[in-house]
């Protein structure tokens, strides 16, 4: 059995969980095992998980606010009962605080930041990102299986698997946590940066925080989440949670639009795994152009407003 932690947030299945399920489905095919989705959060699955390869779905009631030790206990009890060889979860905030606890308790290996697998050599090999995205590493696992934490946005969810699933519910029956939560502050609105599929990011080339209106507008038109370079966050022009790069968040969206950012190596360390990079910069020598798929060399204060108008026109026509 392969156990997949499936998170439901605001009644929606998290995309990161669909990524974990997609890896599980691939592993199940290769090893001839079944996939069980263990659903936690504030609702029931918003999509048919059989479509993503789950054979069995268990929804855990009263599980929206579990602490990592309680979640670890729930996962380990389920894994032990089902004799699960693999536990797959996302390396999102939940995964980062829980994966190692589970591996230690189940006495299994842990591979985190996984972006794919293959079985070319007969046994499953898992690929993860290393050296700030400058290389990957392939790992094999012993016969006990492993805890695998998938990198957010590292795997494209694949539907259409057409499995018949059984659905049941259960109570969490949790141990008391050693952690007492006093408060929870959720960021409202947009998709969190780590999960965003399109990111519009801007840097010191913007000159002043009052100029960000055009960045927000472009981001709204593209359904994107906004990000920024470090000096911009340090200067308080933008909130710290938007800061991407070596010391900020590492992201790998499908599309990263970088506006007025030079592309210093420490910035690239957090974004160079994006599938497509579009750079707008007035300096033809800006290092970012070397990492880009598409580049526009010119003044952002002319290009971005024109682009916004053109995109709005295009959308209203189509």
């Amino acid at each position: 059995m392969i156990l997949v932690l499936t998170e439901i947030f605001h009644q929606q299945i998290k995309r990161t969980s669909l990524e974990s399920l997609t890896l599980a489905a691939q592993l199940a095919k290769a090893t001839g095992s079944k996939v069980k989705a263990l659903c936690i959060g504030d609702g029931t699955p918003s999509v048919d998980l059989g479509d993503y390869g789950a054979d069995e779905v268990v929804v855990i009631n009263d599980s929206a606010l579990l602490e990592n030790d309680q979640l670890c206990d729930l996962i380990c009890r389920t894994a032990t009962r089902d004799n699960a060889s693999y536990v797959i979860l996302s390396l999102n905030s939940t995964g980062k605080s829980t994966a190692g606890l589970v591996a230690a308790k189940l006495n299994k290996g842990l591979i985190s930041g996984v972006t794919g697998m293959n079985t070319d050599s007969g046994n499953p090999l898992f690929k993860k990102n290393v050296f700030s995205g400058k290389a990957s590493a392939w790992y094999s696992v012993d016969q006990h299986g492993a805890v695998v934490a998938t990198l957010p946005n590292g795997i494209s969810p694949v539907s259409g698997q057409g499995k018949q699933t059984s659905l049941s519910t259960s109570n969490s029956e949790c141990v008391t946590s050693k952690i007492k939560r006093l408060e929870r502050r959720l960021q409202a609105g947009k998709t969190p940066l780590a999960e965003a599929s399109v990111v519009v990011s801007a840097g010191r080339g913007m000159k002043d925080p009052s100029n960000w209106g055009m960045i927000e507008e472009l981001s709204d038109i593209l359904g994107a989440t906004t990000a920024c370079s470090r000096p911009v966050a340090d200067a308080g022009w933008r909130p710290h949670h938007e800061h991407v790069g070596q010391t900020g968040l590492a992201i790998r969206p499908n599309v990263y639009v970088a506006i007025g950012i030079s592309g210093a190596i420490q910035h690239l360390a957090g974004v160079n795994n994006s599938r497509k990079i579009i750079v707008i910069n007035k300096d033809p020598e800006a290092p970012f152009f070397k990492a880009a798929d598409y580049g526009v060399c010119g003044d952002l204060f002319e290009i971005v407003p024109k682009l916004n108008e053109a995109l709005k026109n295009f959308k209203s026509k189509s």
Partner: protein
Amino acid sequence: MNLLVCISKTPDTTSKIAFDASGKKLLEDGVQFILNPYDEWYALVRAIELKEQFGGQVDVIHVGEASSEMIIRKALAIGADAAYRVDMTPAGSWDTASQIAAFAKTRNYDLIFLGKETIDYNGSEVGSMLAGILDLPYIAYASKLTINGQIATLESEIEGGIAVSEVNLPMVLSCAKGMAEQRIPNMMGIMNAKKKPLEVVSPTDVHQHIRLERFELPPAKSSVTMIAPDDIDKLVDIFHSDLKII
């Protein structure tokens, strides 16, 4: 207060990454190794601040070879009191966590600090494994920590936001931005560091669950397609036809 900070060594982000012919080993020529920034800026400095506030001792531990002593000395120069190096090359996070756990079990640490992740493997694995092995409460990606008696109050990253939590000591935490401000070692610190104890500890036996098979470099990026700044329609078409986001 008895505090332990786990420190790791990592290639500077500006280093060029290359591997030997077997694909299993990083070529270290020309790679500059540094003390992992999160361990240095956030974990170590916050531990030193707590010592300054409440008294006690800050120990640092590193699992690695003798060539790592340079980063250990740096931690001592910043203000740690004593250092321990477990003499082995860890094959992975499980090694590291098991060695630190074996060491920590013999002492009574109130808090064990780690960085949020190492920038070489970007794993965030060691902290939660260590807490799991020691059966201690764990808070990952903490950005604030205050201590009141035996109770720690922390702010930390959770899915979709921030949590404020209370935990009874002892505990394990990994530190992220916001926890402290970087401290630059001064001349006095560097001189004193030479006199501080650095003890070499023998490793315990640990079973490896996973094995590195090979490293791989990403395929070379195809060169950039430039679009003239007055050809905005072309850009719109790229968003539509190639990127498929509108």
